[in-house]
């Protein structure tokens, strides 16, 4: 578990960008945090890191938005799947030659790959953010080690 304090949106983006560049295709990152805490900011930075040129915007309605880039990005928002317990074919996305970012991962817990990088963003009292990286599996542990160094 690694904890990183970031002071601004720019710093959040920069961290996300660095992380995206450190990951290989078929990686899965989950993103948890309250409304307005910076999940979208993080994903925008993450997309920049992958070289996504399009504006990354909300996938809530469509559940998934995919972006082409050198390593493509799947941006999943599972918010509307709270009452659904079906396997909705997520493997297609997770095992693809793309990187997937999942918001509201708790709603698709059953279908997430065992090994993944869990990220929690929290708002601190001074309005800075605490970003917690919880890598599951040796690959993600190494990525986080490299990132912090």
């Amino acid at each position, binding site marked *: 578990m690694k904890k990183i304090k970031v002071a601004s949106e720019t710093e959040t983006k920069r961290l996300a960008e660095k992380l995206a560049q450190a990951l290989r295709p078929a990686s899965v990152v989950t993103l948890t945090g309250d*409304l*307005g805490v910076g999940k*979208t900011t993080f994903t925008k930075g993450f997309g920049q890191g992958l070289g996504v040129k*399009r*504006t990354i*915007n*909300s*996938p*809530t*309605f*469509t*559940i*998934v*938005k*995919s*972006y*082409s880039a050198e390593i*493509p990005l*799947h941006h999943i928002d599972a918010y*509307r*799947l709270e*009452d*659904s317990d*079906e*396997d*909705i*074919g997520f493997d*297609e*996305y997770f095992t693809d030659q793309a990187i997937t970012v999942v918001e509201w991962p708790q709603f698709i817990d059953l279908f997430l790959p065992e090994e993944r990088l869990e990220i929690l963003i929290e708002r601190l009292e001074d309005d800075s953010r605490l970003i917690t990286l919880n890598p599951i599996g040796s690959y993600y542990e190494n990525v986080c080690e490299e990132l912090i160094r």
Partner: protein
Amino acid sequence: MGEVMSQNKETYILAIETSCDETAAAIIKDGREIISNVVASQIESHKRFGGVVPEIASRHHVEQMINVLEETFSKAGMTADEIDAFAVTEGPGLVGALLVGVSTAKALAFAHDKPLIGVHHIAGHIYANRLIEEFQFPLLALVVSGGHTELVLMQEHGQFEVIGETRDDAAGEAYDKVARSMGLPYPGGPEIDRLAKQGEDHLDFPRAWLEDESFDFSFSGLKSAVINTLHNAKQKGIELEKADVAASFQASVVDVLVEKTYRAAQENKVRHVIVAGGVAANSGLRQALEEKFSDQPIKLSIPPLSLCTDNAAMIGAAGMIDYQKGNFSDWAMNANPALDLEIYGNRQR
């Protein structure tokens, strides 16, 4: 000697659309005329979840595809042998849903030895208008739906430039979320539109204009403002008139959409403005656009409601442009959830 394509020959395209929750097929003549147009909606089964559920959507597509095709042919009084090309939504959309349409179109094109045409879903929404009125260029399309809010500039057929898009929520998504927090049934857009007519815009919700030069949109702040207003009123025990909340919210969305469309039309000296996507069904938006462009030399087209929501007729209309340009897809074509509109417009296949 092979078949010579004469100028006078009519072209019939069979089109399939399965990118989201509608299983649809259509036969279009010469890109402009609907011969038959069938849509099997899944909206009833998605009501339970307050929206589309991908795997349910895919399964429904598989169940309905053949029925929809049969009905499309029988309504047209045609057989697959009379079809000149098979067009299908290649992306963007849900990969499992898209695959059903792509596989079906591939099988049909292969079996009948006719061209296969992969179409971009948003290009389809834009071309829905050409089933009603011929395009005049330069043309500006305002694309507004649950998943998209974009301004697309076209200098010629089949070429697209995205000059503005939402940075967070799409307009339709904001409608959905606001409707849900007001306790309105799904889909929320039509409900808010209906209520808005009975209410007054006095709650002074924000308008996100962003930078002066920008044609981008942002609806997430507005959505939060409405939800906070509802929340605060509830805590203070104040009963807000739902119709007024709807009217105030709708006025805020419509103001920004209309003003940015108008500015983009002026700045790019367009001759034709068209509206596309599900939110084009919104009566408040239609009325405001008609007023704004009423004294302009710019032509304004808004398709009938049946062509605003997902359908296959629009895919056939867009596919005709690819047909004329010889932009055919090969058998390796796959569902492409990340298909980019500008790249689609520029590609040579």
